[in-house]
């Protein structure tokens, strides 16, 4: 009896072990030098360059090109030629002429000419999706010859910044410019950039291969292929970097970020970004309908502590609404510091010497780890000046819905991470603080016609110096009125293997790793 049973048990065990052991013989292959693996959190919402307006920018900026790029900080000039070699505008800012580069090919064999540019912009504008609104100033596009494009505007606008935008300004191959969005969303692209889309598995992997016909050429070390692994878990991305199964990652856990440079394998590079955080105060209802209460709240925020806790030190306290490095930023503007005595004095002047009886509701996006980390700090410090905060984390869409539900129903305080569509302060200022009956982004229900007038005037001022002066004046009003607490400008970390070189961090293109200059030692 026992011997038969034992034989059966033995046989099952051996078979079981074989089944289990076969996979153990596999070993992960090392990544070759001509291949980069990028552990990214960024999924694609659309492959249509005219409609793209989300985190797929990470990939679009390597497939497509605009007429000009905004130069990285520290560059000699503000812009860099791309598909246009040079450009000029009339003194009144109503006409902008771009002279195109000759001999540029697209991935599908199309050739760049003036018609291509005209069709690309007209397609984007007529579709009206994504960031197409930035093209509203265009009245007409003329093509006096094959390599000259002239934009005639309805009203003066900084069209160089628009043409260099991260969205809505991509130039599309003439062979695809008439295609419907569906064609793109099936996984096709029609760019002229250094990398082509080779394969796309949604939420899993995207493979790019180099475009041999790229106009800059391939002298020097470059990657033949870039494989993007969609990895939502920060811990997993970190482990991929450590094990060498990824070369670059979008993020690692906040706690790891602090000590990341102590790792033998890897390092963290930090550069500026145009992403910033603010807490918008509902100015339509008590207590934040009182300017002094708003100013008091601004003085009660422990900015440096929040940067440390929320961003692991990767940030700088904001000076007004425009982030450091972006056109429009002004270092000379007033900056609220952490000063509880001043805050309490302002509360007393506002008529609240003993604080506010009712709770104020503070919402933040539950998916945002930074906002989650700083919420308790905000609550603790505001309590010390008599403002009792009730924290309510909400899914982003739910928070947004609540804000838009009318001032009486909206929360008192709402955290918001913002970044500009293109590197001009106009869109930020007009979106977040322009008078709106039914707000889209004016979370603070701020109403100041003088402010609106100034920013519209600045936008229509052709010369940069003149425009800057007006933007500064508008920001002074905003800072004085304090409809929002301007928290911090986020820096942009890049987590990578040490052998990966050639990283360029350009805040005008948030979270974009430009693959063309990268290589492995």
């Amino acid at each position, binding site marked *: *009896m026992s011997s038969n*049973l034992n034989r059966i048990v033995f046989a099952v065990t051996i078979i079981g072990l074989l089944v289990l052991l076969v996979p153990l013989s596999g070993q992960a292959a090392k990544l070759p030098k001509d291949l980069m693996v990028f552990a990214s959190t960024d999924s694609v919402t659309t492959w249509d360059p005219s409609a793209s307006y989300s985190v797929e920018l990470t990939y679009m900026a390597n497939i497509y090109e605009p007429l000009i790029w905004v130069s990285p900080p520290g560059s000699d000039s503000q812009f860099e030629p791309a598909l246009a070699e040079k450009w000029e505008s009339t003194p009144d800012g109503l006409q902008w002429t771009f002279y195109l580069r000759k001999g540029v090919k697209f991935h599908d064999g199309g050739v760049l000419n003036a018609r291509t540019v005209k069709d690309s912009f007209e397609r984007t504008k007529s579709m009206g*999706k994504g960031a197409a609104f930035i093209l509203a100033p265009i009245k007409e596009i003329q093509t006096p010859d094959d390599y000259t494009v002239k934009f005639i505007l309805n009203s003066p606008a900084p069209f160089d910044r628009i043409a260099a935008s991260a969205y809505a300004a991509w130039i599309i191959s003439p062979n695809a410019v008439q295609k419907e969005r569906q064609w793109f969303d099936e996984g096709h692209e029609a760019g002229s950039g250094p990398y082509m889309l080779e394969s796309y598995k949604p939420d899993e992997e995207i493979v790019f291969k180099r475009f041999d016909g790229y106009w800059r050429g391939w002298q020097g070390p470059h990657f033949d292929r870039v494989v993007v692994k969609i990895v939502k878990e920060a811990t997993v991305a970190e482990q991929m970097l450590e094990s060498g*199964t990824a070369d670059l990652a979008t993020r690692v856990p906040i706690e790891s970020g602090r000590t990341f440079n102590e790792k033998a394998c890897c390092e963290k590079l930090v550069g500026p970004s145009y992403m910033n955080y603010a807490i918008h105060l509902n100015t339509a209802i008590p207590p934040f309908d009182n300017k002094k209460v708003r100013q008091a709240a601004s003085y009660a925020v422990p900015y440096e502590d929040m940067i440390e806790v929320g961003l692991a030190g990767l940030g700088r306290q904001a000076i007004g609404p425009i982030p450091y490095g972006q056109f429009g930023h002004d270092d000379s503007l007033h900056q609220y510091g952490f000063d509880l005595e001043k805050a309490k004095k302002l509360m007393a002047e506002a008529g609240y010497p003993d604080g506010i009886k009712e709770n104020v509701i503070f919402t933040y996006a539950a998916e945002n780890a930074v906002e989650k980390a700083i919420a308790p700090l905000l609550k603790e410090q505001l309590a010390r000046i008599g403002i009792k905060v009730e924290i309510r984390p909400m899914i982003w869409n739910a928070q947004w819905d609540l804000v838009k539900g009318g001032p009486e129903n909206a929360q008192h305080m709402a955290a918001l991470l913002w970044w500009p569509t293109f590197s001009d302060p106009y869109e930020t200022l007009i979106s977040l603080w322009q008078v709106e009956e039914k707000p889209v982004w004016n979370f603070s229900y701020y109403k100041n016609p003088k402010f609106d007038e100034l920013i519209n005037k600045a936008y229509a001022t052709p010369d940069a110096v003149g425009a800057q002066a007006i933007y500064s004046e508008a920001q002074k009003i905003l800072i004085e009125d304090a409809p929002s607490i301007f928290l911090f400008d986020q820096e942009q970390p890049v987590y990578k293997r040490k052998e990966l070189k050639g990283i360029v961090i350009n805040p005008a293109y948030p979270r974009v790793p430009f693959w063309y200059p990268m290589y492995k030692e």
Partner: protein
Amino acid sequence: MLRFILKRFFWLFFVLLGLCAITFVLSRVVPGDPAAVYLGPRAKAEQLAEVRVKLGLDKPLHVQFLYYLEDLLRGDFGESLRTHRPVMVGIWEHLPASLELMFSAMLMATLIGIPLGVISAKKENTLTDHFSRFFAVASTSLPSFWLAMLFQILFFKWLGLFPIGGRMDTVVSLVNPIEKITGFYVLDALLSGNWTALKNVLHHLFLPAVTLASYSTGVITRMTRSTMLEVLREDYITTARSIGVGEGEILFVQGLRNALAPTLTAAGLGFAYMLIGTVFIELIFFWPGIGTYVTNAILLNDYPVIMGVTLLMATFYVVVNLIVDILIALVDPRIRFE
């Protein structure tokens, strides 16, 4: 049997209709603007208004529901608000990865759970039995997401034996790509004779499958042990022993066959439940299956995807239960369909 099957599908229709209605209402009631999901976070007010009309969100709820049912009858599950691709396409793209994981996990669970349960029953109240019972309880009690992370730390980070996640190594997928035939990487690699890729895929499949199998393994072990204990006490077993039938045949033929019905039920339910259980596993092992697809949708309230996947899971659950009932009847002729 045919009548039994038809009756089951008849009730399936009402189950799905009810589920559809509940999910539809819940997805509309949850705060959030679907138009904003569709257009992205920076859409302008006019764009949002236009999309609301396009998506029919300006209509009364019951009208929206009727339109949805009408589309469903034509096999149209709608379009993902996030990716703008048909939900059915998204489901077909992601489903093979989940099914491959589930089949592997179920195979492991039955290969381990049934023999372990039988041995445990045979060696009742011995050290083997105690160990087996402890293992079964631990398997069913430990949360799968915790186990997943523990396995990653242990087998990837410390021992370096298995990859951290994904379906294949990057280099292998580029150098030895698998020809897509069914979407099941193991099957496709086998069919195309791509042994390098097959080995690599199995290597990647192992940890997630073991994690997913843990709960079902525990359930199957306990169920098998429990029913075997009853069967082994039956008179016909004693008779079989007395006339010299071998112990192996007694256990695995005479005994197990009669004990299999409840085990099959448990296994079937476990398999159906796995489709839900894959959500955490896929997230942690970045496995591109239905779990990943629906998690991304839930975070954004991408309701067409949520509803499509919910209906899929419900249908799957009912169909698997039906198959289990049929299998039980085949295994045990004493059971009749009523």
